[in-house]
């Protein structure tokens, strides 16, 4: 057997993952991906065990609704051929393995540090000495932006190589946000601590990441969540999507200097996040999603309130969107700006909106359903084809309306709330589990491995931004540097989700 096929949130015995010699492992995973856009790498990581460094690679097949997992053992300090040389899905994963374990890939085209993690092998490497790509030319100049940006956002460095106003190349250097989250998951043993960590992976995706964590944890501990918990998570995910997409449309308007759109979408976000505060006491849903329980059960009163909020939201949203998406001065800034082609997104392995903008049908809600997706909600992804700012804005507009439909359907009849019995969450021994969630930004993947005592020995997080930052770097090529902000905003990627 070359690999083991599992479905989303399925725990399997670690020993059931087929182990190969590295060349066979490479061949298996490259062949799985060959010319099949329905497949992509959702996670690839290494960890130290008694045998050396164990690599685990997870390839998802969106048509078969399966994830194919295989492994290999290598020793540290070895030179290996890279998977990236044959398929770019592995680019950042292998850089991470290189940074954390000192593996030297002989033919990796871009073997640079990823985030200057505190547990990196080479402590002499410092973030201020990042080796930027340089072009020796009298014609070209460089523009450096960050780590601190003009606005109130997270830090990261962008290095442009420009010919006049035109961007030839953009290199995105991250790592400033590195807080050592994956290590803290192992260091902190209590469930409330780990849940709080999950909530802080990326603050704008609190529901997405916490849902990935609790689904994973419940699977690892053999707990089956009831309908009410699944309902709560699905509802919160859709509300988070509505809120952030609305805020993103506001930000896109700000970057094309369209004041009306900026103000209207900006204020329309408020009733949604204020509703999250009415439901769970926090505008960003912190404290809401918990393993095996919910501290703030959704009620019929809240359902009525929410529907009233949406009744007021919808006409104003529709009116504003009809205006924006017909406005020539707005369209001229959004259309054909920041284009990423279908071939490019397939090559990078982008996820979420950054895949659907270019005609790649990739949405976990359809392909690897969790919670109430695939049963109560049969999702059909919003797909666009131009891969430009306009496509990304259109996806948001349509997904908001789609999510409102889902929320109305979910809240039409609430599942019965039962106070959960006291369940002791003890993870099984020597297990591997993988959890996929479609957050508003795209696919979130959490993986965990336990040892013979049931202790966590690996907690691996992949935010959708992991792949999608590369799509942004490609999008801005040949655009004017003045269009960088709108390109950036139309992706709205996470720095902390990447840096961990």
């Amino acid at each position, binding site marked *: 057997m070359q690999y083991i096929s599992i479905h989303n949130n399925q725990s399997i015995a670690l020993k059931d993952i087929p182990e190969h010699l590295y060349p066979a492992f490479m061949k298996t995973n490259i062949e799985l991906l060959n010319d099949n856009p329905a497949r992509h790498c959702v996670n690839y990581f290494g960890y130290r065990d008694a045998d050396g460094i164990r690599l685990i690679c997870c390839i998802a097949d969106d048509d078969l609704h399966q994830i194919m997992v295989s492994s290999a053992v290598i020793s540290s300090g070895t030179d290996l051929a890279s998977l990236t040389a044959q398929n770019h899905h592995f680019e950042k994963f292998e850089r991470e393995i290189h940074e954390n374990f000192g593996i030297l890939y002989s033919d990796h085209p871009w073997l640079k540090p990823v*985030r*200057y*993690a*505190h547990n990196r092998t080479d402590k002499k490497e410092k*973030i*201020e000495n990042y080796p930027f790509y340089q072009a020796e030319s009298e014609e070209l100049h460089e523009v450096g932006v960050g*780590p*601190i940006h*003009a*606005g*109130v*956002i*997270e*830090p990261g460095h962008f290095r442009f190589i420009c010919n006049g106003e035109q961007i030839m190349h953009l290199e995105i250097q991250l790592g*400033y*946000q*590195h*807080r*050592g*989250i994956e*290590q*803290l998951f192992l*260091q*902190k043993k209590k469930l*409330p*601590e780990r*849940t*709080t*960590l999950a909530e*802080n*992976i*990326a*603050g*704008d995706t609190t529901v997405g990441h916490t849902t990935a964590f609790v689904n994973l944890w419940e699977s690892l501990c053999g707990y089956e969540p009831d309908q009410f918990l699944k309902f709560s998570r699905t509802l919160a995910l859709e509300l988070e999507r509505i809120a952030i997409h609305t*805020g993103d449309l506001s930000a896109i308007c700000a970057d094309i200097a369209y004041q*009306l759109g900026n*103000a*209207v979408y*900006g*204020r329309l976000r*408020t009733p949604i996040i*204020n*509703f999250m*505060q*009415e*439901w769970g*006491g*926090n505008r*960003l849903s*912190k*404290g809401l999603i918990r393993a095996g329980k919910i*501290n*703030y059960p959704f009620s019929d009163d809240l359902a009525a309130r929410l529907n009233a909020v949406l009744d007021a939201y919808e006409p*104003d949203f529709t*009116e*504003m969107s009809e*205006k924006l998406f017909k406005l020539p001065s707005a369209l001229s800034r959004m259309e054909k700006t920041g284009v990423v082609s279908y071939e490019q997104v397939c090559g990078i392995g982008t996820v979420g909106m950054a895949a659907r903008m270019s005609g790649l049908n990739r949405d976990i809600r359809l392909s690897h359903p969790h919670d109430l997706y695939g049963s109560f909600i049969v999702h059909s992804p919003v797909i666009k084809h131009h891969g430009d700012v306009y496509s990304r804005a259109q996806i948001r507009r349509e997904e908001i309306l789609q999510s409102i439909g889902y929320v109305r359907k979910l809240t039409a009849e609430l599942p019965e709330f039962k106070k959960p019995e006291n369940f002791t969450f003890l993870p099984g021994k020597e297990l591997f589990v993988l959890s996929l969630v479609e957050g508003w930004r795209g696919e979130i993947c959490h993986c965990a491995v336990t040892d013979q005592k049931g202790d966590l020995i690996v907690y691996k997080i992949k935010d959708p931004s992991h792949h999608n930052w590369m799509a942004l770097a490609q999008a801005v090529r040949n655009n004017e540097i003045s269009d960088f902000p709108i390109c950036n905003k139309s992706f709205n990627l996470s*720095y*902390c989700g990447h*840096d961990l």
Partner: protein
Amino acid sequence: MLDNIKILWHQGKQFIPDVTNAKAPGIFRGRPVITKEKADETALVEICPTHAIAGNPVRIDLGKCTFCGECAIQFPNKISFTTDYKLSTNERERLVIAEGDENPILVNPARVRKEIYRLFGHSFKLRQVSAGGDGSCEWELNAANNVQFDMSRFGIDFVASPRHADGIVITGPITANMAQALEICYQAVPDPKIIILAGTDAISGGIFADSPALDRSFLSKYQIDLYIPGNPVHPLTFINGVLSLVRKQK
């Protein structure tokens, strides 16, 4: 043109007229109150993910609290969260709420540097530095200047350059990788200057407090002028906090 006016008209009045007395909607978790009732203190201390609760007598440190509300769910007779969003102070020790303490949290005017009211009372420009912040506090600081909260009405703004700023607002637990950038940014702000810590992560490190990836040495070098708790900081908490620092309270 007419469409634009129609859209504007349909928005109605959005701004909050009085942000110093507005009510936070729903079950907002603000300043906690601890009763003197007997409770299993060991269990209570144990459930807090960030060690914000101490026993004998019970107290909560809002500089460490993530406001998840777990303690109030498990010990409803002992701890409850009020909707009071005025949580800011210039004294770190005031963030520790003791049993029976129901007093508002205030800025101690005696410890505000004397030039602050005169220089910054009517115009206060801030440079924000996210140093490992998860994006949520940054989000709420942006919201503080949207059409509803409209912080600019008080002359308080975020500016792009530290050269134009009167102080910095730090969010996040301060990662080692951001320590140098933070220091450079602070040095670029002209004197006299202010340091504000916004959010639990900035004040104590929050859930990341014992992470080896942090470098919080900046905080021991300089005086902190204002602590604004929250996870994330609510826009009302932020605006009222800053106002209570730069304007003399009547």
